């Protein structure tokens, strides 16, 4: 099987976005890169099933997403992968200082249910339409919309970005403590 050079270049060009997606999903750079590698191998082995003229990026994202989900399910069975522990396992590479800047966001993302996390990233960061995201996740457009909405709401609460910025849990706890010590 010979891979068309233009198609191969297009696959390679999709790598940066695939990595960004994989890192957002798994919260772990090394795991994400392994996931991207497996995606590329799987894609090239099945390149005949890609229909030219359709969205290559969406096709690659679908492969990666399915690989991640099957791996995630496996891990869940192996260890009790509670949300909290999942968040704890997140790696921030020391050489990537800017990772720190997004630490809070990544932690908040990690606390989202899997379905909501992937929907939000696909629509909110990867720039797919609701229709494309629905296709990638194999569900209805309405389902994607409601997942994205719920994800945003939860993220906003988690990061306390909203009008109620001063009413974050810390402020509330401090107010209670201050009240009691009076």
């Amino acid at each position: 099987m010979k891979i068309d050079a233009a198609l191969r270049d297009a696959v390679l060009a999709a790598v940066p976005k695939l990595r960004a997606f994989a890192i957002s999903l798994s919260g772990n750079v090394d795991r994400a890169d392994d996931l991207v590698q497996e995606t590329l191998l799987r894609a090239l082995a099945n390149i005949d099933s890609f229909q030219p003229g359709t969205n290559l990026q969406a096709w690659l994202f679908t492969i990666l997403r399915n690989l991640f989900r099957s791996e995630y399910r496996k891990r869940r069975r192996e260890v009790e992968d509670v949300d909290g522990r999942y968040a704890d396992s997140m790696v921030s590479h020391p050489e990537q200082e800017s990772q720190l800047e997004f630490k809070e966001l990544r932690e908040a993302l990690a606390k989202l249910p899997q379905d909501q996390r992937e929907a939000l990233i696909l629509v909110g960061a990867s720039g797919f339409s609701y229709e494309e995201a629905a296709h990638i996740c194999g569900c209805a457009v309405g389902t994607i919309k409601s997942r994205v909405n719920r994800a945003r709401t939860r993220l906003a609460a988690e990061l306390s970005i909203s009008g109620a910025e001063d009413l974050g849990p810390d402020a509330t706890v401090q107010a209670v403590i201050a009240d009691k010590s009076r």
Partner: protein
Amino acid sequence: MLQGGSSKSTDDGSGKLDKETQTKIGQQLRAMYDEVVRQGVPDRFAELLRQLEKREDKEPKS
């Protein structure tokens, strides 16, 4: 079973956020995402495709 609708949150029930909050979340998400995108294609992936190509070249042509 409990019927849905017992309101323990203070949002309007639709789960919708105001535009400003949505925009802030969108900006943060994209900033985080784009930071990875800007790192480009790590060598290991370009190398991987080169290796696959070499292997294919060795295959007898029909």
